[in-house]
C-alpha cells in the first residue's frame, strides 16, 4: 500500500468520521489505523521473551516476528467460528480432583537422587544466586 493511497484512505476515514461527529483524529493516528500492521511488533516479541524468561538474539527476534505473522494469521481463522454467547469451555468429562494436603516423606535414596540432579548443590540444599 503506497503512501499516496494511505493518505487517500486516511482522509476518507476523516471525512466519514466527521460525518459521524467524532472528534477529528490526528494524522498520525489515521495512518496507524489504516496501515496494515504486522500481527506482532519486535517490541511485543521482546516483551513475550521477557515474560518467558528466554534471551533472544537480534536475528532470533527478526525471524520470530516474521514466523509469528503467518502463525497468527492462521489461528485468527477462529474469529469466524460461530461461538454462542454463553459458551463455557470445558475439557471433556474430566474435572478437578484433589487429594489430602499431607506431607509424604520419601526414602533417603530418592532424596539423594533428586538432590543429585541439582546443578548447584550445597549439602542438603539446592543453591541459587541471591534474589534480593
Amino acid at each position, binding site marked *: 500500500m503506497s503512501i499516496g493511497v494511505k493518505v487517500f484512505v486516511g482522509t476518507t476515514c476523516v471525512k466519514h468520521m466527521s460525518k459521524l461527529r467524532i472528534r477529528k483524529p490526528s494524522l498520525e493516528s489515521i495512518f496507524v489505523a489504516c496501515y496494515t500492521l504486522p500481527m506482532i511488533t519486535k517490541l511485543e516479541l521482546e516483551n513475550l521473551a521477557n515474560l*518467558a524468561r*528466554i534471551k533472544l538474539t537480534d536475528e532470533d527476534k527478526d525471524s520470530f516476528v516474521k*514466523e*509469528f505473522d503467518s502463525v497468527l494469521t492462521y489461528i485468527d*481463522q477462529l474469529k469466524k467460528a460461530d461461538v454462542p454467547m454463553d459458551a463455557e469451555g470445558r475439557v471433556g468429562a474430566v474435572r478437578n480432583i484433589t487429594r489430602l494436603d499431607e506431607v509424604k516423606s520419601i526414602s533417603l535414596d530418592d532424596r539423594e537422587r*533428586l538432590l543429585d540432579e541439582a546443578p*548447584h548443590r550445597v549439602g542438603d540444599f539446592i543453591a541459587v544466586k541471591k534474589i534480593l
Partner: protein
Amino acid sequence: MPINLKTLTIQFAHEAMKRGDFTAVQLTEAYLGEIANKNKEINAYLEVFADAIDTAKAADLKFKAGTATMLTGIPFGIKDNILIQGKVASAASKILEKYHAPYDATVIEKLKAEGAVFLGRTNMDEFAMGGSTENSAYGSTKNPHDVSRVAGGSSGGSAAAVAMNGALVSLGSDTGGSIRQPASFCGIVGLKPTYGAVSRYGVMAMGSSLDQIGPFGKTVGDCEIIFNAIKGKDVHDGTTIDSSTYPIINQVGKKKPVIGVPWHFLGGDGIDPVVMNLFKAALASFEKAGYEIKEIKLPNISYSLPVYYILMPAEVSSNMSRYDGVKFGLHVDGKNGIDDYFETRHSGLGREVIRRILLGTYVLSSGYYDAYYNRANAVRKMITDDFLKAFGSVDLIATPTAPSPAFKIGEKVSDPIAMYLEDIFTVTANITGMPALSIPCGISKVDDKELPIGLQLTARHGDEKTLFTAGKEFLGEI
C-alpha cells in the same frame, strides 16, 4: 534357532519363549544386533541400554519359574520423554542432556512388573514438538522405507525402531498426532488411547489436556496387549480414568460397527491423490466385510488446527517454565539469579520449542486471553459436541492419518505452517480426548521407493475395543 524378526508378534514370541524355542536373552540379542547394523544410519535410538541383556536374563528366570506373563522378555523401545529411573531422559533436548530420571514413570513401572526389556531410549522432536523428528537436538531419524525421508514425529524414533526391526514394540507419546503420524509414515500400527486411559505420571508434560502415552507395534494385537498392560487409574495422575468413567458403549445396533466419513473435510487439494485412493479402497474393503459406511458432517472440524495451535502452545508455555536450570538440567550462568533463567533457556531450548513457548505466552497474555485462549476452549467444546453427535449414528470415524506419505528431510522444517498442516487429521482426537488408531492401508510408489500410508479410525471415549476389532479385521489378524 534364527528368529524371524520381520513377522514376530508378542503372542508368537511369548509362546516361543515358553516352549523354549529361544530365550529372552537370544531375543534381545537379535534386536541389539539389528540396532548395531542399522541405527547409525536411521538414528532411531539416542542410547542403547547396556543393561538390556541383564533384564532379559531376569525374564528368562521368570519363564523357568513358570511366572512369565505376556510381556515378559518382550523388547521395547522407549521414547526419550518417558522416565526410567537411573537412565538419562533428555526429551531430545540439550537442556536435559545429562538429566538422570530419579523415578520410574507409571507406564514403566507396569512394564517392569511384567519383566519387559527396555532396549534403549528413542529419538523424538525436542520436547515432543514437531511432526518429523527433525527438531531433535541430536539429529533427525530417517524413515527405514526411504532414508532420504522423515520417520514422522514427534515419536519418530519409536516408530522407526519397530519398522527397522530394532524393537518388537515401542512406546511413544501423542499430543496432536505424534504416535499416529509416524506410525502412518513408517507402515506400522500406532494407538492414541482415550485421554486419561494411560497415566502421564513420569512422562514429560507437553500439553497436559492433550497428551497420552501409547504403543507402537506391527499388529493391532500387539498394541492391544500393551494398552491393556499400561492402562489404569493412577493415584499419581488425577486425570486418569477407569472402565466406569465412560458409560457402556451405546451400540448403534448393527451387527458390525458403522463407519462414518466426514467427506466434506476430505475434498481439499492439500491431500495426496494416492492417499485418497488408498483411503477409498480401505473403506471398500470394510464394506465388503459387512461394515456400513455413512457420510457424516462435523461442521466445526475446520477449526481444529487453529484451536490446537492456540491451546497446545498455551499449555506448553506453562509446562516448559520448569526448565530453568535451578533444580535439574542444564544451568548457564547469567549476571544474576533471574538472568540465569534467560541464559539457561536460551542455550538449552531449541528453536521450535522457543517458538511455541512465545506463541503460548502471547495467547495467554492480558488483552489476548479472551480472544484466543477462551475462544479456543469454547470451540474445542463445539468440536467435541460435533463428534459426540456423529457417534449417535456411527461407531467409528475414518479419515486418512496424514495428508501425504513421508516427506523429504528438510522439506518442511523451515515453514512452520506447512509442518503444522500435517496434523490436520490427527489433532481432533487430542482435542476431543477420543481414542484413535492408525493402521497401514497401502503404499505409494515414489522414486521407486515404497512409502507407507495410514488409515485412521477414531472411536467414542473409552471404546478402544471397537478400534481393535475393526483394526484386526482390516489387517487380517482375525
